[in-house]
Structure formats: structure tokens, C-alpha cells
């Protein structure tokens, strides 16, 4: 008895585009995401594995032992760049200029410590241009090589195997973000909170944009479904006012959402930075010279939150977010207006959502540095991707100098979208377009 019923239900469901389209999109989305992520991962891995390992060496010890370490590293295929003592900025700049992503600072007493078989203190300064989830630190490779040398040097002439020595080197890690001229405690990977925000914040931003679009599409589709749009268009009010009223209402609701999101974002940074401060009580002034990094309690040197996320950056993000919400609300109105009912509107929003999500994954996973400049410009100009890339680069990289131009371009696109939407708001145009859509996709016809 139940079998025909089940059969009927299954057929009914599988023939419904509302059910099928998200399935297909979901199936397409995952391989697409995998593809996007794999490209970025391959680039990151290639960067780490291929090419000569370049280490910047600042030898403050100046003993034969430290010179021997440099020669030993070179024998192992590492290209050693000798750096002169100076300010952190100039040190990082020189290292980056000569292709070194990690600077090993050998302190005074290095040779003496080895001869006395005491653990050796080393300071690693990772010089990176951007924070990324997928970066592989050169410091890890360097540290293991140096450890190998130190173990061997300590036990020279004893006949003891170097492999029995545990922790001959104590490493202090720092990261210097060249794009911002900011130093942070720890290696780039351990700044996972920041890296994670690079992923999460653009996603939150895009969710907000999608919610706005869905909301306005539904609201407009209800107008069609209930035939209230017809009534509205016969009231003594211009169509542009009807559209603006709708957009503003969407905007206000979405704004409330984004204010909460923005507050959450600011709270996230403050919390994160306060965590870093707690890790290193005491001094909070940023280190300026190498000697600061070598001083006891050196991990207290921190970037102030404002150095990482500038108020200008937050301001630009707020503007960009507002434009994006307006754009998405207008896009939603278009989708809703073209839909005879809510069901059709939901079906139409799904493919649009994919168009939003794919670029966002590019933003999240692709290194800003490695990104094609044209792609980067496009992501900055499109109102729905702009806040995502802006929020990422604001934290992890550096904002482009052309940002005001991009903001203007996205404002222009938003205004164009609103204008086109207002042209659409007539029963004549809408019924013509709805008929065309029904012809192209007969399954969307109102049943």
C-alpha cells in the first residue's frame, strides 16, 4: 500500500526544481571549491618546496662557530644571506629584498654556549608579506637544520651520536608583516586566530549579503504573488519611490544585521589582541631594533590593534558593506520582481548565491600577493565581493592605494543597479520578462 505513495512522493520531489537545483548546485559547488583550494594549496606548497632555501643571517656572535654554522648551512644547499645589524624595519626590508623569508639572529655567546654544551638561544624573524592559512614557514626547515648542526657541534670529539641530544636550540619566533611594517609575536602559523579571521570575516560578510538578497527577493515575490504590486503601482506614488522605500526598508534591516556583524568583528580583534597582550605581560611598545628582540621578555613587543586594522580600513569596510547591502537588496528586488511567486524567487536565488560564493572562496583561499591584478581589481569593484576582499586584506595584507577608485566604481555599479531596477518596476515590463522566463524555463511556470 505504501509503495505507490512513496513512489509518487519521490517523483514529485525529484521533478521539483526547488529540490533538484540546490542538489545540483551543491554537487557542483564542492568540486569547484576543491579546485579553487587545490590551486592555492599547490601554489603555497610549490613556493615552500621548490627553489633554494634562502636564510638571512644576522651574526652578532662573530665567532668561528657561528661562521662555521653559515658554511654548514651552505653545504646543505641553503643560500645564506648575511645581514647587517640595524632597525627591524631595515633588517626585514633587506631580507625580503634578498629573497630571505626568515632571518636567523645568532646572539652573542652562541659559540661559547656550544663549547660549554649549553642550550643555544636563537631568534627567528619570519618576514612575510601577508598572513595566510596555507603558508608554510621556512623557519621550520631552518630550525631543524640548525638543530642538526648544533647537536653535532656540541658532541664533536665525544663519539656520542648527535641524535641523543634533546632540544639543543631554544627558538624565539617573531613575524614581521612587511605589507604593514608590523611585527607580531610567534611564527605566522601560530597567528591562527588572525588567519582564521581572514577566512571567517569574508564568509560572514557574504552571508549577510545573501541574506539581504534573499529577503528582498522574497518580499518582492510576495508582492507579485499577492498582487499587491499591482495595487502599489496604481497608487499616486512614482514607481521609483516604491522601489526606494523597499530598498531602504531592506537596507535598514540589513544594516542592523551588519552593525551587529561589524561590532562582532571589532570585538574579535580586540579579544585577539588582548589575548596576545596577555601572553606577554609588561612592555607593550613595538620593537624597533634587533636588540629589542634579544632582550629578556622580548615577546612583549607587540603591534597595537590599530597598526593591524586601521580606523581608515574599518571606515572603508563600513562604506563598502553599506554599498554591498544596497546592491544586494536591489538585486533581490529584481529577482523577486521577475518571480511570479516566492517559490520561483527561491529557485532563482540559488544560482545567484553560487555566483557570490565562488569568488568569496577565491578571496579566502588565494594569496593576495599571488592573485592576478585584474582578478583582484574585479573583486574590489564588484559591490558584492568588495567587502569580502577588503575585510581580508585589511587584516592580513595591505589595502590597495586605488581603494577610493574601487569604492567609487562600486558606488557607480550600485546606482546603476538601482536605476535598472526602477526601470523594471512596471507591470508591462515585468509581465513581458516573466513570460520570457517561463518560455526559457517552463518548469518555473506557476502551477
Amino acid at each position, binding site marked *: 500500500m505504501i509503495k505507490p505513495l512513496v513512489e509518487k512522493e519521490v517523483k514529485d520531489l525529484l521533478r521539483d526544481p526547488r529540490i533538484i537545483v540546490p542538489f545540483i548546485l551543491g554537487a557542483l559547488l564542492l568540486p569547484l571549491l576543491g579546485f579553487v583550494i587545490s590551486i592555492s594549496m599547490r601554489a603555497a606548497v610549490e613556493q615552500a618546496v621548490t627553489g633554494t632555501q634562502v636564510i638571512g643571517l644576522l651574526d652578532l656572535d662573530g665567532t668561528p662557530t657561528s661562521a662555521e654554522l653559515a658554511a654548514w648551512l651552505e653545504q646543505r644547499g641553503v643560500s645564506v644571506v648575511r645581514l647587517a645589524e640595524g632597525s627591524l624595519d631595515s633588517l626585514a626590508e633587506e631580507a625580503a629584498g634578498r629573497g630571505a623569508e626568515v632571518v636567523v639572529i645568532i646572539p652573542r655567546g652562541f659559540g661559547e654556549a656550544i663549547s660549554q654544551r649549553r642550550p643555544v638561544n636563537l631568534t627567528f624573524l619570519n618576514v612575510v608579506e601577508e598572513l595566510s592559512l596555507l603558508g608554510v614557514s621556512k623557519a621550520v626547515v631552518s630550525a631543524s637544520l640548525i638543530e642538526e648542526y648544533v647537536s653535532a657541534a656540541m658532541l664533536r670529539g665525544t663519539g656520542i651520536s648527535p641524535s641523543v641530544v634533546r632540544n639543543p636550540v631554544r627558538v624565539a619566533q617573531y613575524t614581521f608583516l612587511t605589507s604593514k611594517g608590523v611585527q607580531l609575536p610567534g611564527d605566522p602559523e601560530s597567528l591562527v586566530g588572525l588567519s582564521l579571521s581572514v577566512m571567517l570575516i569574508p564568509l560572514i560578510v557574504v552571508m549577510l549579503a545573501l541574506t539581504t538578497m534573499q529577503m528582498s527577493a522574497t518580499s518582492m515575490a510576495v508582492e507579485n*504573488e499577492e498582487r499587491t504590486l*499591482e495595487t502599489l503601482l*496604481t497608487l499616486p506614488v512614482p514607481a521609483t519611490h516604491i522601489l526606494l522605500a523597499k530598498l531602504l526598508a531592506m537596507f535598514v534591516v540589513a544594516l542592523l544585521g551588519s552593525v551587529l556583524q561589524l561590532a562582532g568583528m571589532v570585538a574579535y580583534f580586540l579579544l585577539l589582541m588582548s589575548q596576545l597582550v596577555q601572553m606577554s605581560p609588561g612592555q607593550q611598545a613595538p620593537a624597533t631594533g634587533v636588540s629589542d628582540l634579544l632582550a629578556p621578555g622580548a615577546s612583549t613587543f607587540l603591534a597595537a590593534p590599530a597598526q593591524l586594522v586601521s580606523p581608515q580600513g574599518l571606515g572603508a569596510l563600513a562604506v563598502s558593506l553599506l554599498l554591498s547591502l544596497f546592491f544586494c537588496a536591489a538585486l533581490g528586488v529584481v529577482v523577486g520582481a521577475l518571480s511570479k511567486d516566492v517559490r520561483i524567487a527561491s529557485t532563482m536565488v540559488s544560482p545567484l548565491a553560487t555566483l557570490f560564493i565562488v569568488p568569496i572562496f577565491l578571496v579566502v583561499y588565494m594569496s593576495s600577493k599571488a592573485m592576478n591584478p585584474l582578478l583582484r581589481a574585479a573583486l574590489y569593484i564588484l559591490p558584492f565581493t568588495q567587502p569580502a576582499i577588503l575585510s581580508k586584506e585589511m587584516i592580513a595584507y595591505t589595502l590597495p592605494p586605488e581603494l577610493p577608485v574601487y569604492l567609487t566604481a562600486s558606488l557607480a555599479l550600485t546606482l546603476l543597479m538601482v536605476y535598472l531596477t526602477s526601470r523594471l518596476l512596471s507591470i508591462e515590463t515585468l*509581465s513581458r520578462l516573466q513570460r520570457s522566463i517561463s518560455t526559457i524555463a517552463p518548469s518555473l511556470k506557476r502551477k
Partner: protein
Amino acid sequence: MRAVQVSNLVKDFGTFRALKGVSFEVEEGEVFGLIGPNGAGKTTTFRIIVGLLTPTAGEVKVLGRKPGDLELKKVVSYLPEDAGTYKNITGYELLKIVAELYFGKSREAEEALELGLRIAGLGGKIHEKMKNYSKGMKRRVQIARALMVKPKVAVLDEPTAGLDVIQAKEVREVVKKYSAELGTTVLVSSHNMLEVEDLCGRVAMIHGGVVVKEGFVSDLLKEYGARNLEEVFFQVVGGGAR
């Protein structure tokens, strides 16, 4: 003076010709019925009269002006067929919004709202969200919305469609009473020819995008020796209404 003049109206939707030269005139203060089966062209004609659609050919004048301009919209009310409501606002809120759209925050708006509340006649239920309304209640609010602004012309497309006999009767009574009281010219469409007899003085019968007969209800009944308009209609179209 003529409130509405429709001459040789043609409307194409792609390759489909919905109206094939519709003509009729409505005098001021008249309750005029456009009757015909579904798909005859009633809604398309009304949508052109209120300026929602533009004709492919032919001309429409409402109170001597072309439809669609903002000044005309102030004196022409339209009730679309199957008009729904906003589910999450109350009937009172809807009427208040409409009153303010027409008259701003003025004494006139307050009067319009009072009239609207009287026409709707929903008592305390007017303050409930409209998603809780029955179909008849929703239609009462819509009729109130259309008439409370004291329009010179009210275009009501199938105002009783989907209502039960009691609700339909109530809506007809409201339209009759208030259109007479306000001196409004009413154009009403229906595929229910019996109810049109109850409501209208004069009718035009439309079939396949063409007006096939026009006249006073009493004259038409006499001319065809018919008991009702339905019989007249079938005699006019030769029984092949569909």
C-alpha cells in the same frame, strides 16, 4: 461628461492578441459592468484603463486624460483580481498608510481613514494582522482601500471572485451603497453575469478580445427576450462561449 472612453483598443502579448479593438464609453456616476468568460480580455482592458499596461493600438481617456499620470492616479482607484494583502500588517495599518499616501498627515487623511473603517466594517478585527482574515474580510478591506479616498473612478476587477454567496452579497452591497453615496463612477468586471445584473446599470459583453454587445441590462433582457444576462450572452455568442 464621459468618465471613461475606450476606442479600438488592441493589446498584443508577444504573438498573442488579447484585445482586438475594444471600444466602450462610461458616463460619470455610472456603475458599468464588463462581463465575459475567463480570458476574454477584461483584466487586460482594466489594466490599460488604470495605466498598468500600455495599449498596442487604440486610445483610452479617463476623465479626459491619458491613464497613468500621477494626478489621475489620485482620482482613480483600482482593485486587482484576487488582490491579496500584506499578511503581517493590520487592516487598520493598511488603511492608514493609504490615507497618508493620498492626503499626507491631514484632516482629509483622518476623514478618509474614518470612511475606510466604516466601509470595511470589521469592528475590532480591523486591528488584527491580515493573515488572520478570511477571504471576505480581506476583500472588504481592499474595497475600503479603493473607495475611502473618494475616487472619481473606481475600477474593480472581479471584486467577488472566490467569495461565498454571503461574502459576495456583502461586497456588492458595500460597492452599491458607497459608490452611490460618493458619486463614484464604477467599472466592475465579472464572469458571474447574474451578479452584474444586481450591480450594474449598463454592461459591455466581451468575448475573445472583442466587445460583442453593449447596453442597459433592462434593454438587453428585453431585446433578447431573456430571463437573465447569461442567456443574453449565450444568444449573442451563439452558445460557443468557450
